């Protein structure tokens, strides 16, 4: 039994012990950061390998890229995904393209750890879910674990990867206790996890919504509806095969994430599934996401804004309430 943030911390310790080229850098990382993800690293590995930096996100990311090109394996922390705006030039124009633009000469094995998610009264600049921006960039891998076991194992895989990986954690999950087996072994990037089996509807859910979807599935089960819940864990590259196989059995799909629904990653999943499995679908693909507005501060407004188990439940019911013309014939 561990927490999500302890799994991240443990994976950092293991990677730094195993390889002297692994370094950690970011704001306040030597002090453990605001969520203790890097706690204790500086004491064991020294401030030469656990580098506190000024509030200079662009430069920090650029330093990590240069260091990676010269043989290190830096793990950069961007404290809130909201600050990814300051890093995007380095991440998008340099890290993602260096291997490609150099004709394969350069490799940029960096991991950019960051965390998103709302629900903590953080306001519009400390609560966003911006994964779809990053998933849009060829050359980046994007990983978004929902459970402690996956968070630790996927961080290990990300550090071992030969290219840039963005690991998007979730502040709302940091101190959740894991319900899954303690040691699943290595988790490769690009492999989904089926959290729950069911034949009536498939729910594909990211990050916090994966847990919410399990709760929704329990309620649906009490009504005799068995939902299959899939956590992609990796957005890029997406394990479409697992999703399509599931939809082939359930014939219905709900895609759920906390990000604003419009232009969100769920739209890509929906498009990919309808292209691969149009004939298997008995109902339009339902999407669950936040409304098209910034995250409000006021507690009742934020609570109303956040998608959760209720919205997933309602989306499943909407999907089941639809019948295609072809199936009534």
């Amino acid at each position, binding site marked *: 039994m561990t927490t999500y943030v302890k799994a991240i911390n443990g994976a950092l310790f293991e990677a730094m012990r195993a390889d002297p*080229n692994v*370094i950690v850098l970011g704001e306040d990382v030597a002090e453990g950061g605001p969520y203790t993800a890097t706690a204790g690293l500086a004491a064991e590995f020294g401030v*030469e*390998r656990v*580098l506190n*930096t*000024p509030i*200079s996100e*662009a*430069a*920090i*990311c*650029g*330093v*990590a*890229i*240069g*260091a*990676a*090109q*010269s*043989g*290190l394996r*830096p793990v950069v922390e961007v404290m809130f995904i909201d600050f990814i705006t300051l890093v995007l*030039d*380095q991440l998008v*124009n*340099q890290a993602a393209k*260096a*291997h*490609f*633009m*150099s*004709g*394969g*000469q*350069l*490799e*940029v*094995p960096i991991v950019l750890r960051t965390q998103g998610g709302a629900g903590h009264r953080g306001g519009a600049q400390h609560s966003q879910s911006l994964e779809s921006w990053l998933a849009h960039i*060829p*050359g980046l*891998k994007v990983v978004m674990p929902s459970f402690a076991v996956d968070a630790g194992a996927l961080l290990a895989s990300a550090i071992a990867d*030969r*290219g840039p990986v963005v690991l998007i954690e979730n502040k709302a999950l940091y101190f959740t206790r894991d319900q899954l087996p303690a040691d699943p072994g290595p988790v490769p990037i690009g492999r989904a996890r089926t959290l729950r089996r069911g034949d009536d509807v498939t729910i594909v859910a990211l990050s916090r919504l994966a847990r919410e979807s399990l709760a929704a599935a329990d309620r649906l089960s009490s009504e005799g509806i068995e939902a299959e819940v899939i956590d992609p864990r990796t957005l890029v590259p997406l394990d479409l095969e697992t999703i399509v196989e599931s939809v082939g059995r359930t014939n219905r799909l709900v895609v759920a994430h906390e990000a604003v629904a419009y232009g969100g990653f769920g739209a890509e999943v929906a498009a990919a599934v309808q292209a691969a499995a149009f004939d298997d679908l008995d109902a339009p693909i339902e999407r669950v996401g936040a409304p098209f507005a910034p995250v409000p501060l006021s507690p009742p407004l934020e609570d109303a804004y956040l998608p959760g188990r209720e919205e997933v439940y309602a989306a499943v019911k909407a999907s089941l309430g639809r019948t295609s013309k072809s199936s009534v014939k």
Partner: protein
Amino acid sequence: MAALGEGEALRILRTMWRIRHFEERVGQLKRADEVHGLIHLSVGQEGVAAGVCGQLRADDPVYSGHRAHGHAIAKGAPLERVLAELMGRDDGLCRGLGGSMHLVDRAHGFMGATGVVGGNVPMALGSALAARLRGGDEVAVVFFGDGAVQAGHFGESINLATLWGLPVVLVCENNGFAEFTPRSAHTKVERVSDVVAPYGLVRETVDGNDLLVVWESFGRFLEAGRRGEGPFLLECLTYRLRGHYEGDPTKYREAVTKEDWQAKDPILRLQRHGVDAGWFGEEEVAAAEHAERDAVEDAVGFARGSPFPAPELAAELTYA
């Protein structure tokens, strides 16, 4: 640190002629639509590339910006592979996927050029950090123009480089223009070395078209960098003889007269100095220049003969 002397002068002169002929040929090839994309030439600025890279080892990491041909060539990149890259061919340094603004020659320590002004500065810091952490004595170098100094990455990087004392030499080629605009229209601070003054790093502003001065100043920084000291800033005042890019009508500035330019040209200045000092004779110089011109012509032949890359290459190289 030795001053530039007889032994090195001819080699450096040849490097400058190589760059000059290469750049002028690329200008022609651009007009003939044989090289592709935005092309930024460094004609007139060869002294900085040659004086700096001429003292580096292959394992010293060098970063450059959009005006990168001269730096890559001075660092040892083969002419024919640079030109093939500009033509988008499979034998290009980057197999035709990078182009003029994104040259990389890993084997010669040319770690990359970037088309985003100033974005290369923190990356050079990272390479310097890697050298220090691994116990090496490599010194990282980054070339950038005076326009990059107004970009956010630069300010962040100067702070970080000095805070961490990284072995990096920041080489600013101050040609007086940021793209199409004179420096005076972008900032109140005339000298880049003054911009960084509060950080207390060792810095110098020199005549970038005087090879003897560039060599001597950079050599001192390099020697200290080898001992793990840094960072350093070398501001080289130079002159961009052509427009910002090939095709730029350069309406924003006065044309330089031929007489003026002969007095400024870093190649002619080193030639005159070397001949006067008895380092080499006029004939030797002419022979060197012709040899470099021929080498550029050979590179054109090679690049023209190189195939375009297979279409699958783009997907293959998106991920390592």
